[in-house]
């Protein structure tokens, strides 16, 4: 059995209180609403802020679904998926993003140089770049790290600890999958959610978030079948290829020079 840990997220129990958002900010020292400095905006929905940002590593998204039979108000806890095949880790040139213990995609802010590749290659568009100065390029990436300081010390992430609805849980990934499957079974058989499903078990080699959804992933704004970006794979080929090409050219030049030295008669050179 693997020692991989995962977060269980039961959207059928989530009541969108957003205690998780607050607990995340509190534990990870992220700013919320700061008058005059970090304003908030209401756009006619309860969703706030409008997207993940460097100060908001998790948030609840709101979706309305009317499939003709019933109306559902869907709440999804958004944040880093901690993919098994994480494009962000693969493209990070500084190893600020790493595969950490228990399958957590860890992030070390001190190592980040602000290139922002992670934010551009993530299939879920999760890492957000805190742009300090666009002209100089000074920036820092930012994302949920499953409270790596807590979870590597045997504690649950702050959001899980605070959830009053019991929608969140934390533990061995296999156990979380089993829990999600039995919950989906119950939702289908006893509560009339025929389209209930588990999300995260297989996507991108298996996610670190195991969702119980009561509607198809698309209804939550989740990609049905997220793809590892082709360009990230291309980069992995290009990097060794480029270095071999550079080395080969230098080697060829040295060889050509050695041969040319023997063949070129300097008295004939103009």
């Amino acid at each position: 059995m693997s020692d991989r840990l995962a977060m269980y997220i039961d959207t059928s129990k989530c009541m969108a209180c957003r205690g998780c958002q607050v607990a995340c900010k509190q534990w990870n020292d992220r700013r919320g609403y700061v008058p005059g400095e970090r304003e908030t905006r209401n756009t006619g929905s309860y969703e706030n802020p409008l997207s993940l940002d460097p100060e908001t590593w998790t948030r609840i998204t709101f979706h309305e679904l009317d499939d003709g039979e019933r109306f559902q108000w869907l709440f999804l806890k958004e944040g880093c998926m901690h993919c098994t095949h994480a494009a962000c880790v693969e493209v990070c040139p500084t190893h600020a993003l790493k595969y950490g213990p228990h399958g957590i995609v860890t992030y070390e802010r001190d190592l980040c140089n602000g290139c922002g590749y992670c934010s551009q290659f993530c299939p879920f568009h999760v890492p957000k770049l805190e742009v300090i100065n666009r002209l100089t390029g000074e920036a820092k990436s930012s994302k949920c790290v499953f409270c790596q300081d807590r979870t590597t010390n045997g504690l649950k992430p702050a959001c899980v600890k605070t959830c009053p609805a019991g929608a969140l849980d934390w533990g061995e990934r296999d156990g979380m999958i089993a829990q999600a499957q039995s919950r989906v079974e119950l939702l289908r058989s006893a509560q009339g959610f025929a389209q209930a499903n588990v999300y995260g078990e297989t996507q991108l080699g298996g996610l670190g978030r195991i969702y119980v959804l009561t509607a198809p992933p698309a209804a939550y704004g989740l990609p049905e079948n997220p793809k590892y970006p082709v360009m990230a794979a291309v980069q992995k080929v290009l990097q060794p290829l480029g270095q071999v090409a550079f080395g080969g050219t230098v080697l060829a030049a040295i060889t050509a020079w050695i041969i040319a030295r023997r063949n070129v008669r300097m008295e004939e050179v103009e």
Partner: protein
Amino acid sequence: MSVRLRDRDSAIAIRWIPKYTTLERVLHWVHTAAFLPLALTGFAIFAPWLSDIAQGAAGTHIRLIHRVAAIIFGGVPVLYAILQPRRMWMNAKEFLSFGKYDLLWLKGAFPYYVLGRHGEMPPQPRFNTGERLTAVVLVLGTIVFGITGLTMWFLKGLMPAWLFQLMLFGHDIMFLITFIMFIIHFYLAVIHPMMWQSLVSMRFGVVSESYAREHHALWYYGEKRAKEMWEAHQAAHKDQT
């Protein structure tokens, strides 16, 4: 321009022919001074084994140096176009005129530059095929680096992720091509024993008459005479064999 070298009882007069203007030489070296830090800082981000030096504040400074060098690199052709537009236009036209002698150059390059066989090199204009290819790659590189670099710099997060990924790919591919071209250019222009005057010309702006005859016959003799000489040389070579 001529330089007189005297020994005990004779005098050798070397006639020097101007090839580059002072501005062209200054800009060439400014371009080089911008290209090298650009390549090195870019390589630090590109090569995974150099991640240690690309990390944190050092990495941020590497990216800053890359940006500053990029502005200088892009500024060089702009400055050239402003200060000597006619020279630039003349050179651009020469860079883009490829013909049958270029194929022969490519064919003759190995025996000539590696095996030292002088007879196999067809007459060349003021810039030989290799120089012109380098220039074309450099112009293409400036355009591609400019577009991909500026969009990644200023539009990251504002353009679709797939477009950013494509820009990064274009930037990397162009880096590979230009850097390989740079290694070849450095070898032929600085290290190769037969091409010693190319470095002299980029320092003093001139090449000797004998060097121009040998390496740039089309420029030195004019097209008609250079062609006649080449054809006569070819015919004589054929007779011998």
